């Protein structure tokens, strides 16, 4: 049985269903990330695992034990909050040791665990300070330290980096990954930042409006999205979508037509295609898979709008003849004049196809 198992979880607030029949498994030692837009229910789901939110229906199993109605105190789960939730009237040492002291853990054991956590998180010199005397990154470390010392079965992180600046965020991301490697404990992490999800996760759970859209490894989600939502959510800049029509269906391939394409494009399908000639489909192309020029087996003709230089790369914004906006991510600095015609080549192996409901074909 999975180490953490969420079985047909439902959560309602009055008439509003915020979690709708969700099934998720996490193996022992796995790093699972819940990702999705604001309001998709990911934090609510995490809070239900922690026991801070009541489950309307369904069951939560932790290490084979049903903990659906178990008090948070008895779940052997530690949680790191978005706001850090450090106790302002206690020193860093007292914050970290608080749970242990209340559990009547022997003094020497508390000191040993606090020292160990402080060493791992490099906060030995902060132990006598109060939270007000700490920077955002230091507060985050203390919050993690407070969770570590309990030796929990499961770590829960609720958007722990969202209050930090970009540089600190990437630094803490590395530290959390290192922490997971060192401790080997199961971690469930909530974020709306797909970069965090892609870099930290063993497996990602993509949520939308309280439903699971797809579960898989970062590579799975990037290379084989189940639907347009996942395809658009995973990857930065997001995938370009073009409305195309089916020209032909031939066994395991579908040929599509779009005015911006130089020629009809034949693509292999992942599933038995439920489309027929004349049906409307959506062609998905990632910005990083488009190259300016005539390279690539397939080509688009676009009209330039403007360019954004990001240093190592440039993002070119262009439009198809029918007014669909496309983004191209190209290496180096590149300028683009408004109205300039550009040719964009791509490998059909990197093209994605979705039916009119948004499901991958």
């Amino acid at each position: 049985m999975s180490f953490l198992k969420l079985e047909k979880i439902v959560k309602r607030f009055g008439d509003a269903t915020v979690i709708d029949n969700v099934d998720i498994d996490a193996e022992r030692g796995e790093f699972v990330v819940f990702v999705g837009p604001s309001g998709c229910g990911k934090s609510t789901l995490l809070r239900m695992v922690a026991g801070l939110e009541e489950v309307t229906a369904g069951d939560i199993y932790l290490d084979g034990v049903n903990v659906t109605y178990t008090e948070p105190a008895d779940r052997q789960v530690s949680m790191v909050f978005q706001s850090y939730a450090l106790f302002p009237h206690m020193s860093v040492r007292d914050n970290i040791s608080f749970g242990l002291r209340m559990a009547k853990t022997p003094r020497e054991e508390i000191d040993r665990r606090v020292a160990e956590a402080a060493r791992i998180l490099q906060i030995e010199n902060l132990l006598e300070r109060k939270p007000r005397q700490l920077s955002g990154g230091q507060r985050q470390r203390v919050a993690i330290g407070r969770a570590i010392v309990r030796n929990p079965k499961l770590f829960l992180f609720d958007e722990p980096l969202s209050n930090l600046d970009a540089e600190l965020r990437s630094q803490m991301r590395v530290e959390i990954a290192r922490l997971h490697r060192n401790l080997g404990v199961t971690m469930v992490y909530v974020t709306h930042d797909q970069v965090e999800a892609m870099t930290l996760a063993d497996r990602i759970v993509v949520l939308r409006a309280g439903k699971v859209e797809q579960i898989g490894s970062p590579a799975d989600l990037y290379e084989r999205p189940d639907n347009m939502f996942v395809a658009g959510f995973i990857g930065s800049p997001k995938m370009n979508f073009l409305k195309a029509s089916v020209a032909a269906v031939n066994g395991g391939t579908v040929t599509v037509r779009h005015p911006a394409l130089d020629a009809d494009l034949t693509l292999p399908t992942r599933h038995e295609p439920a489309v027929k000639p004349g049906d409307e489909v959506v062609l998905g192309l990632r910005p990083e898979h488009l190259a300016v020029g005539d390279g690539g087996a397939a080509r688009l003709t676009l009209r330039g709008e403007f360019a954004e230089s990001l240093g190592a790369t440039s993002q070119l914004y262009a439009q198809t003849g029918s007014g669909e906006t496309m983004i191209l991510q190209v290496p180096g600095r590149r300028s683009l004049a408004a109205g300039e015609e550009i040719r964009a080549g791509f490998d059909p192996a990197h093209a994605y196809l979705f039916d009119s409901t948004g499901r991958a074909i």
Partner: protein
Amino acid sequence: MTEIIGSVINLDLMARYGPRFLDGVVVTLQLVAISFLLGGLLAVPVALARLSKSGVLRALAYGYVYFFRGTPLLAQVFLVYYGAGQLRGAFEAVGLWTFFRDAWFCALLTFTLNTAAYQAEIFRGGIQAVPRGQSEAAFALGLPRWVAYVKVVFPQALVTALRPLGNELILMIKASAIVSLITIYDVMGVTRLAFSRSFDFQVYLWAAALYLILVEAVRRLWAAAERRLTRHLKPV
């Protein structure tokens, strides 16, 4: 110098009633301090009842607070003091008459119940001002609910409540003058006694000065306590 003071202050009157005024200050301080502390103890369960999930508890606490905040303190003092006399037989039967026949105890009870209602609302506001994440963090650390509240929520709620509690204490000092109407010789009781015998309006000025001194002393002590108790919140 003595002549100048003598022309402003009636020194004979001061000599005659000065010690009585000091006794009055002691009575006022005792009444306010004891009722404020007892009211604080009563306010905590009332505040918790106001925040309870139980509709019955919430309604009872709300009714209590609504009555004591919605009616004049003077009416409450009269209700207890004169009402107790009406119920003498009942109180004697349960051995409470010795308590209720004494104006001091009637005043103490009324002030305690009154300030408890105000303090309950102050504590309720303080508890609600503590971010929910604080109690949740405590739960997530494996703490039982009561430990989370006692060790994490209440200390922070108290910090939020400090200033309004100070205001309530000052209001009580000033409101304590009401007890002079039920034969208690607090500052105002002594003032009324002195005026009824001397007809010198000056004694009311002395009373005003004494109340100002008391209030200012309490304000300064409270501010010092507040500074000390909120050190951990001040930015470095």
